[in-house]
């Protein structure tokens, strides 16, 4: 196929997937959250179960005026949402939905994911600083401190997976989970890394992901009761929508990475080859939605951590445990 045609096709598919996925997750959050609080949630928009509520919200945001504070640094202020959105969408390039259903299977897949998703810190700092607002600045700095603190355990537990799989390519990591672990009575048993001794890594990955997303219980950067809306305070209209969609898109991205690293990605035991290209995306979407539901569930259940408790958790617990995790995994890798 023509290179450019293929590129445009992939871009359209990824963009469409990210945006519709974000809308679906927003709807799921509205509905699940409401039912967890004994409410019904959106009900009338779209005629049935309020399915059109996220679309209606989006249209409303589009109609709002795109304001920039007089004292703001206009260029940086306008650029910040694009940086956040870009870093989120770029992650989807390497996420495999099947042996061939992948934007580009990089050899350094997981490295690329961790590097590019850290770029959103830059966008958030840009937003916080350029808004010329003390709430935004404090929120941006808190977000930076938090994202750096939780990026470390994320990288360290991913390193443990890389050690166990022996490759950084996300497709390779899936393949490592699909290969035969042991054989009982002629039946080949394969298991995802979650079962093959990465349970601690998975828990730390999920905790760090929630913190990366700045969601409750780690939403100090946008804690309404103290910082209004943190670095989002001054944003309105389309730019706020981009931050909002970006948050939900990165929720899907992090769930997809967790599903690939720990839950076996698109792999199905006993299925291989071209069939996997057809059922792979479905399996992957199922795993992603399970993890997204876990994020939503946590958000509507647990209270928010104080800023110092949040740092305490990362530096005193998660980082030492994930270092020990690497050591244990390495020892097992060498011994067996």
């Amino acid at each position: 196929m023509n290179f450019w045609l293929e590129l445009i096709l992939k871009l359209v598919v990824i963009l469409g997937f990210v945006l519709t996925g974000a809308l679906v997750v927003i709807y799921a959050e509205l509905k699940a959250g409401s039912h967890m609080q004994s409410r019904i949630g959106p009900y009338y928009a779209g005629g049935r179960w309020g399915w059109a509520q996220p679309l209606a919200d989006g249209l409303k945001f589009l109609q709002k005026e795109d304001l920039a504070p007089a004292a703001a640094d206009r260029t940086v202020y306008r650029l910040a949402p694009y940086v956040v959105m870009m870093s989120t969408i770029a992650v989807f390039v390497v996420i495999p939905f099947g042996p061939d259903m992948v934007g580009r299977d990089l050899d350094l897949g997981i490295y690329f994911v961790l590097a590019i998703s850290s770029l959103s810190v830059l966008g958030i700092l840009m937003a916080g600083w350029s808004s010329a607002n003390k709430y935004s600045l404090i929120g941006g700095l808190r977000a930076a401190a938090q994202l750096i603190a939780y990026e470390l355990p994320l990288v360290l537990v991913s390193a443990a997976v890389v050690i166990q799989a022996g490759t950084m390519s996300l497709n390779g990591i899936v393949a490592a989970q699909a290969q035969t672990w042991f054989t009982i009575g002629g039946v080949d048993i394969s298991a995802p890394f979650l079962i093959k001794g990465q349970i601690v890594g998975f828990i730390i990955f999920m905790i760090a992901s929630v913190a990366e997303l700045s969601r409750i219980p780690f939403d100090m950067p946008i804690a309404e009761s103290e910082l209004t809306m943190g670095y989002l305070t001054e944003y309105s209209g389309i730019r706020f929508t981009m931050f909002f969609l970006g948050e939900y898109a990165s929720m899907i991205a992090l769930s997809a990475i967790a599903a690939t690293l720990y839950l076996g990605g698109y792999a199905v035991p006993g299925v291989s080859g071209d069939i996997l290209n057809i059922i792979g995306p479905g399996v992957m979407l199922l795993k992603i939605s399970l993890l997204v539901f876990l994020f939503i569930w946590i958000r509507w259940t647990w209270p928010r951590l104080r800023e110092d408790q949040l740092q305490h958790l990362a530096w005193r617990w998660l980082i030492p445990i994930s270092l020990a995790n690497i050591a244990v995994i390495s020892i097992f890798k060498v011994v067996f």
Partner: protein
Amino acid sequence: MSKRIAFPFPGLFKGMWLTLKTMVKRAPVTMYPDVKEIPVPRARGVISLDVDACTVCMLCARECPDWCIYIEGHKEEQPSSKPGGKPRARATLDRFDIDYSLCMYCGICVEVCPFDALFWSPEYEYSEDNVSDLLHNKEKLTDWLATVPEAPGLEPS
């Protein structure tokens, strides 16, 4: 020095279990415009006025914390009920308006009325597109009287 956090072991998961249980349960919601909510008879919905009982004493207007009751009246000469008696002056109500955009539904006016001219009605569907339409005049307040539930009987002494 900040206090260390203890690991909240069963608590976190008890909470998760509770929200999950609540999510699959039916939400106890009345789908309001389709299904009407029936308030208890003594609910404080709207205040109704019995014009014949009102003596324009202004007590309700004076006690109202929000100053949302507007009363105007005049004295009318009335012939004496007995022949040869002195003509009496009777206060007549010209205007009795309650501004429901200001009212805070405290019910003090109903409490203080010495002639039982004001009543609570459980009716609640009187929202308007325009704030000024929330000023209910004498006629409108009298119309609410039909919705006032019957008062419970007195307690035996």
